[in-house]
Structures are given as C-alpha cells and as structure tokens.
C-alpha cells in the first residue's frame, strides 16, 4: 500500500514559517497537485517529502513508514527538478541510467530500461547527445525519463513545465498525464500554473502562506471554492468578487432560496444556496460570479446588475468584456458574435445557481 501522508507538517526557517501544519494524503496511484502563488510553501513541502529539507515538526509517511529521519537517498523517491538538473558531463543515455546503478542491475537490464523509457518519451534520437546540446523540451523529457526509469515509491515534480513555451507545454501536459496514468504511483506535482494543475491532477491542494486552503478535485475546486482566495485563484478570467450587504433571503421558485443584496449602489437579487439563510440580515458578504456565469440582458429589474462597458478584449471565439460600475471592475465573457459598443450601459444577470456567497470571513456559504 504505497501512499504519501503528511501529518501536521511544519517547516520553519529561522523567523519564517514556510509550511504551517499541513495535513495531506495522497492515495496510491493518485496524482496530487500542490498549487499556489510564489512563496506559499509548496516547493518546500515537496522537498520535505523528498528529504532535501528537514521537517521542523510533524510526520511524513511514505508507504506507511515514517521517513522524517531518513536521508533522501534512502527514501527511494524520484524527483524531476525545475531546472532539470541533468548531469552536464554525461550523455542522455548515461543520465537515464544514472539512478539504476544503485539498484545493482546488470548492463543488459539497464539498457532495456533505457530503451523502454526512450520509446515512451521519444528520446531515441538524442541518446548520445549531451545536455547542453538539447532543446528545452528535450531536456525536460530526459529529466522526466530519469525519474520514470526506476521503480520508486512515489514521483515528485517541481514545476515541470514552467520553462517551456505554450505549445510545448500543451504537448508535455498530455504526455506526462499518460505516463503517470500508466505508472500508477502516488505523484505530487508542484506548480503555480492552474491550467497545469487542472489538467494533470486527480486532486489539487491549493496553498497560501504555508497553509492548505482547500484540497479537492479540479471540478470541485472550480464549482465549490471554499473561500475567496481559492475562488479568485482558480479560473481564468478571474472570478468577479464584489462586496455587498445582505438584505434578506426569501423563498424562491422550486424551494430554492433567493437572496437580495445591496451592491454597487443598487439592489440585486439572485438564487443562492440555502445556507445563506443563516447569515444575519444587514451583514457584509462577498459575492462571487465567474465571468462566464454572467449573461447580458437589457438593463433594469432586480435580477439585473447595471454596468457600463469600458473595454472589449477579443479572445478568439469569445469576447472578454470589462465593465465598470461605481468604480468596481466586472468581467463578463460572451460569444464573439455578440454586438456591443464601448460606453453603453448593459445589464448583467447571473445564471441560476452560479452565484457564490462568501461570509464576512471569506468562507463559502453552502
């Protein structure tokens, strides 16, 4: 039963608390992404799992065994570094073979493994080259290859795609995902790019300032962000987050709840989750609506928010509309065929059930 378990993991660097009581479980065969802005502690956490940093407090368990006191070489983990860390004086083949020497394999076995890995990652043509003769994408594949050539207990990736251009990134994302599915070992990927996380991970742990904000599947993160930070972090273009005051909650059609709010100088009403009833009337809340959750409607009416169109950003098949209302920025995405004029006043309606309400502490109310 190989899995990774982090219990109350903490790391302190002199005055800086980099990782703060992190609890996390990665199931066997699961791909877990640590996602967050720079400095949130994700790389430190990864390095503690690898054994390259020591834990100040807490437990790290790999396959049920507590490994805090084991140096990296005894943990049998495989890691792909952000800067690839390919050995410059060795050829690609020798780089791939490097980890296998510790397993005591014979020459033939080593060559077999290299051949397997080269086929999967398309490295056959460059086996004799040295790292400085490779392009970025090739270097990245060799780095990944060096990880998968062994039989480790788990795989760790530190920002694997950050140095690639967009096209290569899309290619590699799919390739890595396929490889990981076949290998079926617990994997932790650190990234700051949410697209990477959303496409490659089974579950994502969003981190901020050393703490885990939310651990969920990509879908749940998107649909049910647990607080304003996660809501604003996940999803492009960024979710609209506006402060409002809760007027009242009424019963809407079909037993749903309908909330009425004061925001941006006018009244606004939309369907909300039942939990909103528990909030005090007159209390401050934050409303979250994703740009694609708005639809354009003629201005007027309680369920329509009025705003002035400030800027139109073409995004290929869609248009990103930047709107202003009482000094606040709102974003809305519509189809590119929609006819709009800069400066006109439009109405925004929220699609039913896609309004997120966050209480005064920023937590999602469900």
């Amino acid at each position: 039963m190989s899995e990774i378990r982090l219990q109350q993991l903490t790391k302190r660097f002199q005055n800086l608390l980099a990782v703060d009581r992190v609890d996390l479980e990665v199931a066997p065969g699961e791909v877990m992404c640590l996602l967050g802005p720079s400095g949130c502690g994700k790389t430190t956490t990864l390095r503690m799992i690898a054994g390259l940093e020591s834990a100040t407090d807490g437990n790290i368990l790999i396959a049920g065994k507590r490994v805090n006191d084991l140096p990296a070489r005894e943990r049998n983990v495989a890691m792909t570094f952000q800067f690839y860390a390919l050995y410059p004086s060795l050829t690609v083949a020798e780089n791939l073979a490097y980890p296998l020497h510790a397993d005591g394999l014979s020459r033939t076995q080593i060559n077999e493994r290299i051949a397997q890995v080269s086929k999967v990652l398309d490295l056959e043509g460059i086996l004799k080259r040295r790292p400085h003769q490779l392009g970025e994408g090739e270097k990245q594949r060799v780095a990944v290859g060096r990880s998968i050539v062994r039989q480790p207990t788990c795989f760790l990736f530190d920002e694997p795609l950050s140095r690639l251009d967009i096209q290569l990134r899309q290619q590699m994302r799919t390739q890595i995902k396929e490889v990981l599915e076949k290998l079926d070992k617990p994997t932790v990927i650190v990234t700051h790019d949410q697209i990477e996380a959303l496409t490659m991970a089974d579950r994502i742990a969003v981190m901020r300032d050393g703490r885990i904000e939310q651990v969920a599947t990509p879908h749940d993160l998107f649909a049910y962000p647990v607080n304003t930070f996660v809501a604003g972090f996940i999803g492009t273009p960024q979710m609209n987050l506006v402060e409002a005051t809760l007027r009242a909650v009424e019963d809407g059609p079909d037993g749903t709840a309908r909330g009425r709010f004061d925001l941006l100088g006018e009244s606004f009403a939309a369907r909300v989750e039942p939990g909103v009833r528990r909030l005090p009337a007159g209390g401050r809340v934050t409303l979250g609506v994703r740009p694609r959750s708005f639809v354009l409607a003629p201005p007027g009416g309680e369920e329509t928010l009025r705003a002035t169109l400030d800027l139109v950003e073409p995004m290929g098949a869609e248009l990103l509309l930047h709107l202003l209302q009482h000094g606040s920025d709102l974003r809305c995405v519509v189809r590119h065929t929609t006819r709009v004029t800069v400066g006109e006043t439009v109405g925004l309606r929220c699609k039913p059930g896609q309004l997120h309400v966050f209480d005064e502490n920023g937590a999602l109310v469900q």
Partner: protein
Amino acid sequence: MASREVRAIGQAGWGRTLGAAAISLIYFFPVLFIIMTAFKTRSDALAWPIKFIFTPTLSNFISVFFRVTVEGGAAEATGFGLYFFNSLFIGGTSVLLALIIGTSAAYGFSRFPLRGNDTYLFMILTTRMMPPIIAIIPIFVLFNVFGLSGTYIGIIALYTAFNLPFSIWMVKSFFDDLDRDMEDAARMDGSSEWKVFRKICLPQVYAGLAATFVFAVILTWNEFVFALLLTGTQTRTVPVQIVRTIGGALGVDWGLLSALETLFIIPVVLVTFALQNQLLRGVTFGTIRR
C-alpha cells in the same frame, strides 16, 4: 526515537571546523610567529619552547626606524623611513601610470578588437610570464649606459611596464563584463565615444580599477629581483633591504626583521580583506572570474 537531523546538502558541522582549524594553523603559524616575534624582546624571541605568553615590547618597531649607534647618543634614523617611502612611492606611481595606459589599451582591446587581438594579448601576457632574469640582463646594461641605475625614473618606468600586462588583462576583463546595451543606448542618444567612455563605462569599472590598482601595488610592493639590481642606496625598496639585513656579520636581529616584515604586510592584509571578492580575479591576472 532518536532523530538524526537530516542536514541540507552542502552543510557541515563543527567537526569540519576543527579539522580546518588545524590545517589553517599550518599555513598561518609562520606568519603568526613573525608577528609575535616582532613584539618580543631578543631573548624571548629565540626562547624554546616557543613562548606564546610574553610581555610585548615595541622596541623592535622603534628600532626599525631609529637606532642608537653610540652609547648614550641620540637615536638616528636608520633609513627605513626612506625605504618604506620608496616602496610606496615607486609602487604607487608606477601602478598609476600603468593603470592609465593600461585602461586605455584595455578599452581598445575590449571595444575595438583588432584583427590580431588575441595575438597581441597573448604577447602581452607572455611579457609578464617570462622570468625577470631574462629581461634584466639587457635592461641592466642599458640602465648603466643611460645612467638610469639607481634613479627613481628608471625603476618607475620599468615597473610601469612590469605592471602593464596585469593592468591590461584585469581591466579588460572588467570591460568585457559590462552590459553593452547601455552604451548603445547612449550612442543612439547622440553621445560621443569619449562621453560614452567617461559617463557610462568608466563609472562602472571604478571598483575594478581600484581593485586592480591595489593588487598591482601589492605585486610591485613585494617585488624583489628588479629592485635588487636597479635601485641604488637612495631608491632602495623594503624587500631588498630585508635581504641585506640578513647578510650582516653580527648575527641577525630577528626581532627587528619581524617588526619590519609585520609593518610591511599590514597593507597587504588590509587589502586582501577588503578585496576578497576580487581575489580570484586578481591572482590569476584577470583570466579567471566567477
């Protein structure tokens, strides 16, 4: 359960400090000995086992500059004041000249490479690398012919040429490291070449120039061979005099010598400490830099 601290890669503990301390002592001890002896009385200096605890005295330092030759007579200057001055003056002037000429050449080599650039630079480096003995023989004769032996002009001219290759290589390495974009921007804004040099390139290499100056002075400071042959009684430098002192028939006054050498290395120590970041570049003549 005893937890072994997993150390980060590249760290070592006090065990290594002890080992390193023992080894550093081997390198430092002779220098320490010299400094200690400078503060010891004659009997203390030659005592065995080596006295680490003793009453320090400044008499040696005074003897460096003044000596009482006649019982009860007045102390007269030994001339070492002159020798120190000579070392400073000759070293400083020649390095300054070398730096001026050298910086101009370095700028030329760096920014306006000629066809035979590498060859010129190679030849320049060779002049520095060759044994001083080889150049000395004809120079000695020439000096005598032209009456330059023992003069300031002669030795300063020689040391200037002596320091030129070093200056050129060092300063060129600094110019090479500069970001050209700023210069190009200035050129596009209409600055003349001289302005670009003065306002953009030069300010950035000031630190490098200072380091080169100091390194070159140190090299010249410690120079012995040329000084031995080409300085006279008035222009003698300290290293020559140190060696001459040892040739006395009365037995060597090690306290005096130690005091002399201690005074002499103070500038070097200060400099090494202040310029430790440029140290590698300095001792390899600008050919290697991190």
